[in-house]
């Protein structure tokens, strides 16, 4: 039998300047032409003759795989590995630049639940509208209406505009519509990052039921390794736009988690050793690890080892260390660790050369990519900053354990965690 999904040599190219598309004003283009007409012409000429190497960026390249009917395939990879691009191509939101995909069946995608919900319309109206957007016929929606409402548990609010729904109700209704679409191929991207723990369990259960009882094919993209492991037999690991590994889920996840969870520390330390211009208090080395080793998880504790030196005078007076963890996706600070407001501060002075150890409580961060910036402050003024010096990836969000209530479109709550500083 033919595979239900055949992906053959698919690639997607972006022009860098297109990619992060703030819109261009016509004025800027015209002003550019008027100010530098020759530069503009020369640039155009180079583009036409192909002499200028354009800034191409392949988000996906040479991706090929087959999926048999009834298989549940997990797709994992770091942010920017091409997962979302692959799903967007599969769900026809954006066309591939090269290659071909054959889909033998109706495709439904849950790229983001609640797409097309209109806040002014009632729950009942939105079920029909959303169903139609997802490709259901009116008769089909009418037939499934009761089941959709029951699964979402919103029957009392059916005739209330959804703008008055709580975000939990909103998500439940949206997922419920999508889950009852019954496509042959279902594409799921991170839907499980929404709703409360109880509802997430229900969703996972629904997905399992869908595959086991009804033999449906699912492509499941997630950072939640526990969920991938539970649902998928086979997993594709994407990295840098290509397939790094494909095979048994367990094997792939182990390989994935053991591949560089924290990067940048070693390289940074080498670079820091060669800084000649720093005379005052400055960093000499940095090492970040999860306490207990291995990959960083949502409940991991981080261990920072910061080597420092002061080449001018003796002790460093009134030392202070700030460690800032930024979410790479949103560029928001998620953790702010300050030795001055720690339970045990560094004291009034520390020796001219040494190492500072900081250990945190569980970081409580959801799966994703983060970067670390460290500051060294002495006597109230900034002496050294290492911006985004180390990157690390949190690989699992064990939502059931934390019982977080994540909401779609809302940021993860800022964390307050405890930590200790020690001078060795």
């Amino acid at each position, binding site marked *: 039998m033919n595979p239900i999904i055949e992906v053959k040599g698919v690639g997607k190219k*972006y022009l860098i300047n*297109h*990619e992060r*598309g703030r*819109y*261009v*004003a*016509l*004025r800027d*283009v015209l002003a550019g032409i008027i100010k530098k007409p020759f530069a503009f012409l020369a640039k155009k000429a180079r583009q036409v003759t192909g002499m200028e190497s354009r800034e191409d960026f392949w988000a996906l390249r040479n991706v090929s795989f087959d999926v048999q009917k009834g298989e549940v395939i997990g797709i994992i990879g770091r942010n920017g590995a091409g997962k979302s691009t692959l799903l*967007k*191509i*599969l*769900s*026809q*939101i*954006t*066309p*591939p*630049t*090269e*290659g*071909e*995909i*054959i*889909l*033998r*069946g*109706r*495709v*439904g*995608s849950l*790229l*983001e639940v609640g*797409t*097309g919900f*209109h806040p*002014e*319309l009632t729950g009942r*109206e939105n079920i*029909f*509208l959303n169903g*139609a*957007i*997802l*490709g*259901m*016929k*009116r008769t089909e929606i009418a037939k499934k209406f009761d089941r959709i409402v029951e699964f979402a548990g919103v029957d009392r609010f059916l005739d209330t505009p959804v703008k008055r729904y709580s975000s939990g109700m909103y998500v439940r209704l949206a997922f419920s519509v999508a889950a009852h679409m019954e*496509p*042959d191929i279902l594409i799921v991207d991170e839907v499980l990052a929404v709703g409360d723990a109880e509802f997430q369990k229900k969703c996972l259960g629904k997905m399992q039921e869908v595959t086991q009882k009804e033999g449906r094919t699912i492509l499941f993209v997630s950072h939640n390794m526990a969920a991938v492991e539970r649902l998928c037999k086979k997993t594709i690991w994407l990295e840098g736009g290509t397939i790094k590994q494909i095979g048994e889920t367990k094997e792939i996840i182990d390989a994935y988690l053991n591949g560089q969870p924290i990067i940048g520390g070693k390289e940074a330390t080498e670079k820091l050793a060669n800084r000649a211009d720093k005379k005052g208090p400055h960093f000499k080395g940095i090492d970040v690890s999860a306490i207990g080793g291995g990959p960083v998880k949502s409940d991991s504790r981080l261990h920072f080892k910061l080597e420092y030196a002061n080449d001018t005078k003796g002790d460093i007076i009134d030392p202070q260390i700030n460690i800032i963890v930024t979410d790479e996706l949103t560029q928001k600070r998620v953790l702010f660790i300050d030795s001055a407001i720690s339970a045990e501060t560094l004291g009034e002075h520390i020796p001219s050369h040494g190492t500072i150890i900081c250990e945190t409580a569980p970081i409580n961060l959801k799966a994703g990519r983060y970067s670390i910036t460290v500051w060294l402050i002495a006597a109230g003024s900034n002496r050294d900053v290492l911006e985004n010096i180390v990157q690390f990836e949190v690989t699992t969000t064990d939502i059931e354990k934390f019982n977080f209530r994540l909401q779609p479109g809302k940021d993860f709550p800022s964390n307050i965690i405890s930590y200790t500083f020690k001078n060795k």
Partner: protein
Amino acid sequence: MSSPQPTAITVIRPKKLFHLKDLKEIWVYRELLYFFSWRDLKVRYKQTMIGALWAIIQPFVAMVIFSVFFGGLAKIPSDNVPYPIFVYTGLLFWQLFSDSLSEVSGALIANQAIITKVYFPRLIIPITTVITKFVDFSIASIILAGMMFYYHITPSWQAIIVIPILLIITAMCAEGLGLFLAAINVKYRDVRYILPYFIQLLIFITPVIYPGSIAGHYSKFLALNPMTGVVNNARAVLLGTAQVNWLQIGISVVGCAVLLFIGVYMFKKVERYFADVV
């Protein structure tokens, strides 16, 4: 979803510009067309006090003002029919055109949340827009019927054939120009600032507030504007101001077909990378 048939095979390849299959696909998705129109109509007048009456008030107020200043004070001729009904007939078609145009040109941007998440033929959105404008047109037509009754004007029997043709021309014209602007709007948002002025200027090269005959030999140039044929002939059949000018209708048909072709072409071109740009 590729298509609602359960066993359908979808092949995803680098996109070609235009395919006959695209038209078939729109037909397959016709229910979505209905749902989008229904949504737009339903949402539009929510939280307004007088609701759909707005569709009447706009052209009605414009008619009153134009009648006072152009008909009453400036004494602009009106082909031997009372100026209010003369200008209202023009405004009715003009507003169908200008409202459709301005909304179609912003349609892609306004619906980007859906477009970047779900697949469906993108042309559904601008088509929906024009459909909802037809509803406004029908509502506003009630006033015209009332005025015809008041002034004792009986439309010609030809109206049954000519008016649908004129409506189709208007829709194609607005759709074509709108799609063209929508395509530009994706990259250059200047469109939304220019367009209101552009539409204000367009009304002067369309015989809405004055009769087409006033232009003398320049009327040939005026006829190149597809909306000229629409407005002139609408008056001819509804108010009996003149004979139906089939040549003018022919010119309008060609004009709007060209506009529509260019519009769809540009739209299709942008459609390919739209989800990557916004």
